[in-house]
Each structure stands twice: as structure tokens, then as C-alpha cells.
């Protein structure tokens, strides 16, 4: 049965995604399924039944005129999708494997970047309490911060170089056959619940990051000042773990989407893409250039403001405002 389904899907893979074609595929599938069931009931073996059904299927040429797909049926395959290379199941599995490792590396390096800011805070707090070696502690805090950053950058570079040979996926013209597309889709559905869970925990951790300062503030009346000095550090630890979870789960979902986006969306084979994302958001090239550095700039602003003022309780307001401004710019630029 699976073999027949694959055969039919492969035949229709590069046809345009129109109601007529879709209907034809369903009708043909109905007939093939009926024939297969009857052959099996007659006591034919799986191979015999599949063979007969496929042999008696006929030729799509006959449907070309009725479906308005003449130019597609008569054109050789390469012309519809120029230089299209078919990705094998093994390629896809390897991509997903390497991409998931890449996600870990990226998420871990982001984690280290955020955590690096903790070092001066904790060591600074420690320096305040021990008067003797305060300079040494301050210095080691700074050094450790740079060590963290260095490790993070190293991991990013290493992982990007490793992923380098997949770069062509974004540039070249690739297609995946039905069985492979189905596999990717299945894997993605499978990962969805994990993704939702990690994302939720990640976001909750980011929100809960305000809890340590509040608690420490309340405790400061009978605890040492040192703890209060550390509160920003605890915020960062919460945020770091939260962001780590968000990055890792989003990137893995991104991997599946990348593969599903490979097939031309105007063909039956491209039917699997869950939602069409308009990638070209800004038509104005100047605006596009500015918007490409929008979120990094916002991040810098947030960190600068927060670290200069230490008003962590209010600086988060940058994020919702930035998000509103971004959607405003998007909508204005569309009109």
C-alpha cells in the first residue's frame, strides 16, 4: 500500500498545486486503493497486488489536457526546477543530525555570552566583602568574563564552519521526494511538543528572572549587602537558561522548516510547508539594511541601559516597545 502511495505522490510531485490536480490525485488514489484491496482479497501477494496496480495505472499524459498541465507533463523534469538536485533520505537524516548539534553549540554559546556578564558581578560582590584581595578578585572577574566570551565565540565559529557544507541548501535548488518529505514532516510533528515545552519553560524562566532581586531585596534587611549586589547576576543566570532553551528548540524547528521549504511551493510536493512565511518583508533596501540590525541594536540598548542604571525592574520594557515598533514599521512599509 505504501509503495502505491509513494508511486502516485512521486508522479504528482512536480505538478502545479491546483484544485484540478489535487482532485485528480485523490480520485486516482481512490481507484488504486480499491483495486489493491480487491487484489489482496483475491489472495494475491503484496508484491503482485502492488505490481498490478502500478502496471495498470496508465500515463499522466492522458490527463495533461484535462488538467491544464500539458506544459508540465511534456517538459523534462530538469526544466521545471532548473538544476534541481534531489536530496536523499540519508542526506536529510545527516542534515538533521548535524543541524541539531549546531543548535546545541549556538544555544550554548549564547548561554555563555549572557553568563559572562555574571562574572564581574559576582567577583565584584566578593571583592567588596574581602578587603584584602579586592583588586585581584575584580580583575579575575573581568578575565573570566572574557574567557567565557572567547569560548562562546570559539564554539560559534567552529559550529558554523562545520555547517558550512550545508550552505548550498539555501542557495541551490533542491527537491525531496515524497517519502523523505513525509519523514521530515513526521519528525517535525514529533518534535513539536518538545518544542512547545522548552519554549514555555524558557519564557517562564525569563519572566521569573525578576524573582531573585525581589527576594534578595526583601532579605537584605537581615542579610549581608553582598547578596543584594549579586541579584543582577541571578537575573542573568535565569535569563541565560531561558534563552538557551528558547534558542535550542527554535533552531531545531528551523531545521525542519528549512528542509520543508526546499520543494517549490507551487507544486504538489511543496504542499507540506505548514505556513507560508513571507521572507521578503522590506521592499525598501535602506529600510531592510536598518532592520537587519534592529534586534541586535535593541539588545545592546537594553544591556547598556540596564548595566548603567541597574534599573532591572523597568528596563525589560524595552522588549515589548521594540516589538510594537517593529510591527509598526513592517505594516507601514507594506503600504
Amino acid at each position: 500500500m505504501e509503495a502505491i502511495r509513494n508511486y502516485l505522490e512521486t508522479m504528482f510531485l512536480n505538478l502545479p498545486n491546483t484544485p484540478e490536480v489535487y482532485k485528480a490525485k485523490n480520485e486516482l488514489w481512490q481507484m488504486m486503493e480499491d483495486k489493491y484491496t480487491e487484489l489482496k482479497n483475491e489472495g494475491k501477494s503484496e508484491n503482485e497486488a502492488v505490481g498490478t496496480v502500478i502496471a495498470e495505472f496508465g500515463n499522466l499524459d492522458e490527463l495533461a489536457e484535462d488538467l491544464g498541465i500539458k506544459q508540465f507533463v511534456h517538459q523534462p523534469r530538469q526544466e521545471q526546477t532548473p538544476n534541481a538536485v534531489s536530496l536523499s533520505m540519508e542526506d536529510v537524516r545527516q542534515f538533521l543530525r548535524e543541524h541539531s548539534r549546531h543548535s546545541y553549540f549556538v544555544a550554548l554559546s549564547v548561554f555563555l555570552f549572557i553568563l559572562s556578564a555574571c562574572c564581574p558581578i559576582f567577583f565584584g560582590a566578593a571583592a567588596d566583602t574581602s578587603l584584602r584581595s579586592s583588586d585581584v578578585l575584580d580583575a579575575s572577574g573581568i578575565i573570566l568574563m572574557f574567557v567565557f566570551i572567547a569560548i562562546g565565540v570559539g564554539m560559534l565559529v567552529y559550529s558554523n564552519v562545520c555547517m558550512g557544507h550545508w550552505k548550498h541548501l539555501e542557495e541551490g535548488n533542491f527537491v525531496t521526494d515524497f517519502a523523505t518529505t513525509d519523514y521530515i514532516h513526521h519528525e517535525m510533528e514529533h518534535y513539536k511538543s518538545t518544542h512547545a515545552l522548552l519554549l514555555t519553560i524558557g519564557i517562564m524562566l525569563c519572566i521569573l528572572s525578576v524573582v531573585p532581586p525581589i527576594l534578595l531585596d526583601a532579605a537584605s534587611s537581615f542579610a549581608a549587602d553582598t547578596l543584594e549586589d549579586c541579584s543582577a547576576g541571578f537575573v542573568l543566570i535565569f535569563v541565560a537558561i531561558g534563552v538557551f532553551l528558547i534558542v535550542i528548540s527554535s533552531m531545531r524547528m528551523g531545521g525542519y522548516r528549512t528542509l520543508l521549504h526546499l520543494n517549490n511551493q507551487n507544486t504538489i510536493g511543496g504542499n507540506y510547508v505548514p505556513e507560508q512565511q513571507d521572507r521578503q518583508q522590506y521592499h525598501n533596501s535602506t529600510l531592510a539594511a536598518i532592520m537587519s540590525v534592529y534586534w541586535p541594536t535593541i539588545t545592546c540598548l537594553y544591556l547598556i541601559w540596564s548595566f548603567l542604571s541597574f534599573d532591572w525592574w523597568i528596563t525589560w520594557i524595552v522588549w515589548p516597545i521594540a516589538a510594537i515598533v517593529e510591527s509598526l514599521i513592517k505594516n507601514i512599509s507594506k503600504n
Partner: protein
Amino acid sequence: MAISSDVIRGYNDTMILYLLLDQPSYGYEISRQIKTLSHEKYIIKETTLYSAFTRMEKNGYITSFQDQNTATGKRRTYYQITGKGRAYYQEKCEEWLLTQEVVEQFIRKGETENGSY
């Protein structure tokens, strides 16, 4: 000896309409009946059948509707003959009788079995 698809193509519509004369039917059922009635000498391809359905529906000879099979509960597309379809069927029958009559004149009986011309 296999049947020539060129010749029979013009009469796929006739066969399908004949099978729809008494009651509506669906894709596989029609293909199965053609196979049985022709004593397995003609097996219609799925694509040929579907192509005939769409063409005849466009011409108004048949209409289609969705229905659930009472036995299996499976939803299928059923086809039903129209008045125009019956007239067309009649026309095709007369055409065939004429064709047969003409071609018949040029067939020498008993020759092919002996293998001599």
C-alpha cells in the same frame, strides 16, 4: 493478441455510459466491470478512466456526487448519466453499428486461423 488502444479509445465513453445506464457507479467498480464483461481482454487504465470522467462531465454527459458506500462506509465519487449522456450513448451505438458494418466487409473469415493470406 492484445487489443489496440488506438481503436478502442473512441469507445471508452460508450462502455462507461453503458455501465451507468441502470445505476450510478464509481471508478473502480466501472473498471472492474469492463474487465469482467470483456472476459479480461480489455483492462482500462486508471488515468484513461479518470480522463474520460472529466471529459464527459465537462460535456454534460455525466454528473458526479459524493456518497458513502453502504457496505464499507468508504466515501467515493459516484458518477451518474444525464439525459444528454443517454442521447450521446445512442448516437455512439449507431456509429459503432455502422463502423462494424463497413469494416466487416473487409474481413475475410477463417483466413487468419489458417495463417495463410
